[in-house]
């Protein structure tokens, strides 16, 4: 199914990412009886971050299953169910908890197709929440994009707005491969957490797919390429707005997925602008920001100034607000850094 009409041509109905996701899941559950959902607090509560709201009432407790706090257990069970033809969705409440169940994800789900020579598939979606900024400290605020994207066999998707979220989720559920679907808490649209306004956008009611692996030019520009994902897309857009007043036209690229990674979109943009800044709220080293910069360097594109990154420093995430805010990227820091790049 092709990507539907352009954004400006959408039926007007603003949704949060949480609502968009639960709608996508509900539509796929209606369409395919093999789709079912498991996770902690996803049934009666509708998910701590609202991704499964309303599903229990619609589909009942057989297909919408609250689980014990046994992530290895229910995720590896999802792999087994997928192996015999089901299409499970599972929720890992916070990505920070991956450490108790990573084997089921990276060694089991991600390798089932390969180990079986393609004869046993793993059409599973693992939803998880990422990101901080609201003082939830070091075991509840991480992004860990690089951790998942580094390991082969799973697709890694990070939506930045509700339109993409619905279309990417629909594509993810229909994909025959395991997909890690990472939703940023700053964008989710839960009442009890702040939400970047740009994440709440018009969303078509009918099911549609946004293809996995195609980056989005969130804002076109000619002077510098700013690559972001999830929450940092909005920081980049806000900074671009500010900089436009100074005559700097930033092109903002929303990666939308890390696996597959749309390297071409980045290269094409940087070839045009001659400048690159990567904004990432995951840890600085050995992650997304390094990979994007390396991709451009390998391509041998001559840049007008050295590429830069604004990423989360290599420190655990501190609780106290002044420390956490100091460590996080934001629009102001993006703008400042870009101005510096134009002075170099």
């Amino acid at each position, binding site marked *: 199914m092709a990507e539907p009409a352009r954004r400006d041509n959408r039926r007007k109905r603003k949704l949060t990412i949480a609502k968009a996701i639960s709608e996508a899941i509900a539509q796929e559950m209606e369409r395919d009886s093999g789709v079912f959902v498991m996770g902690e607090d996803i049934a009666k509560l509708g998910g701590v971050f609202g991704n499964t709201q309303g599903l229990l009432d619609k589909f009942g407790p057989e297909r919408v299953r609250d689980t014990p*706090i046994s992530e290895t257990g229910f995720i590896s069970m999802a792999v087994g169910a997928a192996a015999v033809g089901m299409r499970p969705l599972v929720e890992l409440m916070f990505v920070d908890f991956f450490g108790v169940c990573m084997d089921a994800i990276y060694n089991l789900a991600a390798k089932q197709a390969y180990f079986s020579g393609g004869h046993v598939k793993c059409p599973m979606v693992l939803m998880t929440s990422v990101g901080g900024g609201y*003082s939830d400290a070091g075991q509840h605020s991480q992004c860990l994009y690089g951790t998942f994207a580094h390991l082969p066999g799973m697709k890694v998707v990070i939506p930045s707005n509700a339109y993409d979220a619905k279309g990417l989720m629909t594509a993810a559920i229909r994909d025959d491969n395991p997909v890690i679907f990472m939703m940023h808490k700053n964008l989710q649209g839960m009442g009890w957490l*702040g939400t970047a306004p740009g994440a709440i956008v018009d969303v078509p009611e009918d099911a549609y797919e946004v293809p996995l692996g195609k980056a989005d030019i969130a804002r076109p520009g000619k002077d510098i390429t700013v690559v972001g994902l999830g929450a940092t897309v909005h920081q980049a857009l806000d900074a671009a707005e500010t900089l436009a007043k100074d005559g700097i036209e930033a092109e903002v690229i929303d990666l939308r997925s890390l696996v597959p990674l749309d390297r071409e979109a980045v290269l094409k943009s940087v070839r045009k602008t001659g400048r690159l800044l990567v904004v990432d709220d995951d840890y600085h080293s050995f992650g997304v920001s390094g990979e994007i910069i390396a991709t451009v360097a390998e391509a041998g594109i001559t840049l007008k100034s050295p590429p830069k990154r604004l990423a989360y420093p290599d420190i655990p995430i501190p609780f106290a607000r002044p420390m956490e805010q100091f460590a996080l990227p934001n629009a102001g820091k993006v703008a400042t850094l870009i101005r510096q790049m134009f002075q170099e």
Partner: protein
Amino acid sequence: MYSRMVLSRGYEERLAAAYMEGKTPLFNMANGPLPGEMHLSNGQEPCAVGVCAHLGADDVITATHRPHHIAIAKGVDLQAMTAEIFGKKAGLSGGRGGHMHIFDPKVNFACSGIIAQGMGPAAGAALARKLRGEPGVAVAFIGEGAANQGAFHEVMNIAALWKLPFVCVIEDNAWGVSVAKSQSTAVARNDVRAAAYGIPGVYVPGNDPYAIYAAAGEAIARARAGGGPTLIEIETWRLAGHFMGDVEGYRPAGEKEALFARDPIPAMRQRMIAEKTATAEDVVALEAEAKATLDEVFNFARAAAEPQPEEALEKVFV
């Protein structure tokens, strides 16, 4: 025990009030002097005091995301802990940890935000005591939901195999966030799981500080004597939501009212007076003392300085 229970209850009442500052009319977890998640333990005080009454500073405790009552019962420095929860430089960790990461090495207390994560560190401390020939036991507190996490099983087996001076205390408050114990646990009571490790298992019903004190005393004495670990499950009551902001739509109607009617603090007060282990005046005095302590503690925490932003970069490595 009673005074610690009262202190803990009063402590959380003030914390709850401070938490809501800046969060009304619109509740946004990021706002106010106490941002982030806040898990209260009111109703669960008997577990903490009944166990900790048997422990000294050298004994080790690991607690959970719901740590205040246990920290207070263990004698964690209340000013520094409160400053930590307020994210201040004078906090136990200089504001790096917050309410789910309370570390006070002086009294060997730690907690964490990952379910069942404290099992290993407690058993490891018990192993250290054993290797060094030092006295001292270690107690891991977990919730009933945590007993379904792999770490629980692995550590129980090792602790039993190596006969470590270790006790696992399960606070069974019947809920893991919105999931009832019956929806998460294949057995009605986790004490039966002791059989999987060949160790004693005890179930303590009724959220009763006296019964908890007795059961914990036996287990801790056995651990000290080299008799190995015990698994204790305590029936207790979560009077609050899972965290502040939880609207608790998943609770059956009337459940909370029934629990409040059995609040263990007034119950213990009555019993003490009935059994004449304390007079009404004693109780009033205790309560006044708690209030004075709390005044001091909260004044300190509020007045304390914020950390410098750049301090975020320190203490990653030591």
